[in-house]
Each structure stands twice: as structure tokens, then as C-alpha cells.
């Protein structure tokens, strides 16, 4: 593990020690450190489990933003066959922060759309760190129209800090693009399934998440504003992000209670970043389950149930 989060420092120390011991043993073959190293391994494993069982909302935000988490591209590569990316909004440009296209999921042809953050400096810049411009949302609208026309289910993978706050984005109608994309989600007559795989940042996330079924990964977050932003507005101190994260109720567990998330997809111990393959497999299983459940619904039912779901939000499950 190259990237430890701040709260994982004690873990990094233990794992580092175990590593040191083994390195020493490799130089000096007479030393038998395995027993000691194993004890350290066990200690590290226990600590990891404990840390992730008791993640605070702010720590969840950090995990949700972890650079080593599997991103949209990884899910598409592992879960879908014949992925055929489709590009452009037919108006202005192709936004690389949003990827999408035709694909097969367990033989079923679908349209997949998602935010892609990138995995290294070069790709992050190319992907604009997963912050879409109006073109990204308009590309998504195009793809949703395509799916609607040919009766293909839509799968969206949400992972964005938010829509890009830039001059050009504003000039080309960022808010209109988001509004139309949200509207399109709500009006398609095919199954629409969303999974928040990392960060669900405000309007930029909503634009893809007007779904029949919304699933969230165990440590994903979905919020009206970032904890930092909320803290700087309401606490007048961006440093109060821990308090803000707590107050916003942005974790998957809270959102399930509030009736916003329909289900939670478990992550491996220590988070998706420690075992991307297992995470992707869990997402695949959940996806199959959700799509199968929607298979038998008529276009009218899909549309009406989806709309009713949003009209009903706030009327139930408010025990939190």
C-alpha cells in the first residue's frame, strides 16, 4: 500500500515495522523474524478492521476520495464486454470527465455512463479530476436518449467532487446541462440503475442519479455540499469539516436510513482501495441483481415508479 490516509498512520507504522523486519531477515539469513513479523501482521489486520468498522463521516469522505479506489474505467473494463465508447455532445466538445458508451453486461446490452477521475497526474488532468463541464452532461443526455430509443437499460457510475466551476462551463450553461440531465434520467422509459462508487458531489452527481435503484458502496458518500464547503459557510471555518461531515449525514449508512440509497454494496476490509477486484465483483453482483429486478417492469411502470420514488423522498425512513 503506497497511499496511506492520515488516520491510517498507526497502521502504516506497524506494517512498516513488519516490512523492515522481513527486509532485515532477507539480508541476514540466520535471523528468524517470521514469528515476530506475523504477530505484527495480525496486529495490523486487527487495527485495519477496527479502523474501518468505526470510520467517522469525515474519514469516510477521505476513503471515498482515495486515489487508489477503482474508478469508472476499472469497473467498465472488468464488468462489461464489448465496451464501445461513444463521444461528444454534438454541440461543442467531448468531455473526458464523463465516459460512456454501449456495452454488454452478462450478455445484456446496456448503456453505461460515469464520471472518470483519472489515476495519475496526466490522466487526472485529461479527465479534469472527474469534474464535468456542460458537454459531459449533454453527452450523457445523448446516450440516455439512445438507450431510451433502443430499450437498453442504463447504468450510471457516480464519482465526482462536483460539476466544474469554470468560466466557460458557466457560459455554456452548466446549470441548464445539469438540470436537463437530471430531467432526462427521470424521463427515460428504460431501467436506470446508479451506483455511487466514490464521491457523490452535489448537483454534478444528481445529474446521473435520478435512478430506479440507487446503490452506494459501503464507504461512498453523497452530499449536497462538500464538508469543507459547508464548514466554510456555516462555521465560517473550512477547518471544521469533521463537524460538517458529521452534521450532513452523507454516509451510505445514513442515506439508506433516509430512504435515498436503496442498498449498500459491501467493500473489502480496509476499503475498496485495498482490494479493487473484490470490490468490482461485489458491484457486478449488485448490478445484476438490480437489473434483474427491473427486467419485468413495463416502460410505464419504470417511469412512474421512478418519479414517485423522488416525490416520496422525505416522507419515510426519517428515523435517523
Amino acid at each position: 500500500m503506497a497511499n496511506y490516509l492520515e488516520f491510517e498512520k498507526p497502521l502504516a507504522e506497524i506494517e512498516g515495522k513488519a516490512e523492515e523486519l522481513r527486509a532485515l531477515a532477507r539480508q541476514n539469513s540466520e535471523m528468524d523474524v517470521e514469528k515476530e513479523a506475523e504477530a505484527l501482521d495480525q496486529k495490523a489486520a486487527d487495527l485495519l478492521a477496527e479502523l474501518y468498522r468505526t470510520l467517522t463521516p469525515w474519514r469516510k469522505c477521505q476513503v471515498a476520495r482515495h486515489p487508489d479506489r477503482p474508478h469508472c474505467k476499472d469497473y467498465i473494463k472488468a464488468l462489461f464486454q464489448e465496451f464501445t465508447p461513444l463521444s461528444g455532445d454534438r454541440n461543442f466538445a467531448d468531455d473526458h470527465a464523463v465516459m460512456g458508451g454501449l456495452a454488454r453486461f452478462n450478455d445484456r446490452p446496456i448503456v453505461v455512463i460515469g464520471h472518470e477521475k483519472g489515476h495519475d497526474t496526466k490522466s487526472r488532468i485529461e479527465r479534469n479530476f472527474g469534474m464535468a463541464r456542460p458537454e459531459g452532461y449533454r453527452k450523457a443526455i445523448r446516450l440516455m436518449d439512445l438507450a431510451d430509443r433502443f430499450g437498453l437499460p442504463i447504468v450510471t457510475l457516480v464519482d465526482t467532487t462536483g460539476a466544474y466551476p469554470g468560466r466557460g462551463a458557466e457560459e455554456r450553461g452548466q446549470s441548464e446541462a445539469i438540470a436537463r440531465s437530471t430531467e432526462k434520467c427521470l424521463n427515460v422509459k428504460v431501467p436506470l440503475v446508479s451506483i455511487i462508487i466514490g464521491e457523490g458531489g452535489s448537483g454534478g452527481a444528481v445529474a446521473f442519479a435520478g435512478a430506479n435503484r440507487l446503490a452506494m458502496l459501503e464507504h461512498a458518500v453523497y452530499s449536497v455540499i462538500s464538508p469543507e464547503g459547508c464548514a466554510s459557510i456555516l462555521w465560517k471555518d473550512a477547518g471544521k469539516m469533521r463537524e460538517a461531515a458529521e452534521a450532513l449525514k452523507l454516509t451510505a449508512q445514513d442515506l439508506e436510513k433516509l430512504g435515498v440509497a436503496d442498498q449498500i454494496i459491501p467493500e473489502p476490509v480496509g476499503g475498496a482501495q485495498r482490494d479493487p477486484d473484490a470490490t468490482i465483483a461485489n458491484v457486478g453482483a449488485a448490478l445484476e441483481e438490480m437489473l434483474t429486478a427491473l427486467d419485468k417492469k413495463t416502460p410505464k411502470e419504470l417511469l412512474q415508479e421512478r418519479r414517485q420514488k423522488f416525490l416520496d423522498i422525505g416522507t419515510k425512513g426519517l428515523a435517523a
Partner: protein
Amino acid sequence: MNWISNYVRPKINSIFSRRETPDNLWSKCDSCGTMLFHRELKDAQNVCPNCDHHMHISPRERFKHLFDGGLFTEVEVPKPIVDPLHFRDQKKYPDRVKIAQKSTGEEDAMLVATGEIQRTPFVLAGQNFKFMGGSMGMFVGNAIVAAANEAIARKCPLVIFTAAGGARMQEGILSLMQMPRTTVAVDMVKEAGLPFIVVLTHPTTGGVTASFAMLGDVHLAEPNALIGFAGARVIEQTIRESLPEGFQRAEYLLDHGMIDRVVARKDIREELVTICRMLMRQSPAIKGDLAACEDDATAETTATGTDSDKGADGDSGKDKKG
């Protein structure tokens, strides 16, 4: 305006009975600094007669000017669950709501009303920026759903006057969910074949702009209104350059194709009727016989003549008049 009644008389009165004179008879234009007499300002719908600056106006005040005779029926908004998240920052959320209720005299940040404008039935919904920045929480969502249902039931246009900093953070994800929720509501109006008109007023930003506010059949905006998704400061910090003059203002948006028309507050009444009557394929409105409220006495007499149209009464809400 009568100079003697508006200026000299109050001045004389103030000399003789200083104690009884409220000190808020005069206010200063936010833009040009001209001192404005309160009644003059009220008659001009809070638009500065000197520089045409459009100042804040509450939905209730606006509706008095828009509806015939200043008469309208308030549409009841279903009450949402209060403080679902038990949100607390430096203050408790319910305390913030109470302060806003006290200072505005309103229940929350949106007022919905039905009535007639030039004898054309309308449902109007107005956001109140003075109520926690007009922010969209569950109440505003409920208000828009109620307004949409009312418009469909009455088969009349829905007009929303927007003014908001965005979503109400204190309701967390439930405020964000009002974006899709209000989208469903306005789409129901559109599917019923009825016009949905948005009038963007200063300021309209964030999640409100990125949902129902940008989904109108026609977008009008008041002059110089700030309209945008992200705040200018956030953008400047992101792109590290300063923004052009007039950025995110109504005229700028007009130039960039995001709105249809920039309309002065005094002309909105006429515009709404003209546009909606054409969209509804109705004959042109008969103009000149019905004014918005001038003063209370005339308002009452004019208003009695307007009840002829179908479905105007029998509502559970209480009558409000100017």
C-alpha cells in the same frame, strides 16, 4: 408622485410628532445611493426610480403588484418534517428557521398563490431570498409540487420567481433530492400541456439554477440579476483569473443563450399574460381595465369583478389582499 404629500408632509409631520415617526420611511438605493421615500419605492416595486436598480422584493409584495387588484389565494403547502437530520452548526437549524420566520413573517422560503392577472388565471410561486437565502429544502420542494398540482388542477400556467443561494445545507441530502423532485413536478405541468415560465430574479444560484429554474418553457430574468451555478469567487479560485464584467448577470446570460428575455419588473405582468395567452392559444387579453393594486380601497372594488372565471374560488386557502 406628489411632492407635497410624499416629501413635504412627512417632513412637517416629523417635526411635530417626532416620536411617532418610524425611522424607516426612507431607504437608500443599494446601487446609486439615492434616498428613496418608502411609499414611492413600494409603488415602484422596489425598483430605484433614479437608476432602475431592482432591489429585493418579497413574494407577497410582488404578488400584490402582479395579481388583479392585488388579490390572490394562497395555496397551502404540506408541512415537511422539521429538521430531519437534527442539524446543528453554530446554531441549531430549527432556531435558524424560527429567526427567519420572525424576520420575514413567512413560514418558509416560498409562497404559492393562485389568482388572475388581466383576468387570466395563474399559479405563481415565489422564492423569498430574505428567508435563509431563499434556500431550497423540503418546504420549497413541497411548495413547487403543490404549485404544480394546483396549476394542473386549474389548467393554468405555472410561473416560478426564483431567488436563492442554492440548496438548504441544513437538510443535507434531502435538500439535494429536491432537485430531481422539483424536476418531476415541473415536468408534470409541461406534460399537462400547460406553460411553465421561470422568472429569474437576483440572485439565483446553485442547485436551484441546476434544476427547475433552467427547465422553463420560457426564461425571463430581471435586469442585472445574478444567475449561475458556481459562485464567482469559487470560479476565480479555480481558474485563477478574474472574470469579465457582467459575468453571470441576466444580460450576460441573454448573450450566451441561456435565457429568453430580460424584463423590467414593472413589465413582467404584461409579459406573462401576453406569452401565456399565446401559448394557451387564447385570445389577447383585454388591457387597461384591471390594474394591479394601487391602494386598498380601489383594490377591493376592482377585485370583486374578477371572480367570474371558472375555478377561481372554493379553495381551502385564505384570501390575501394588498
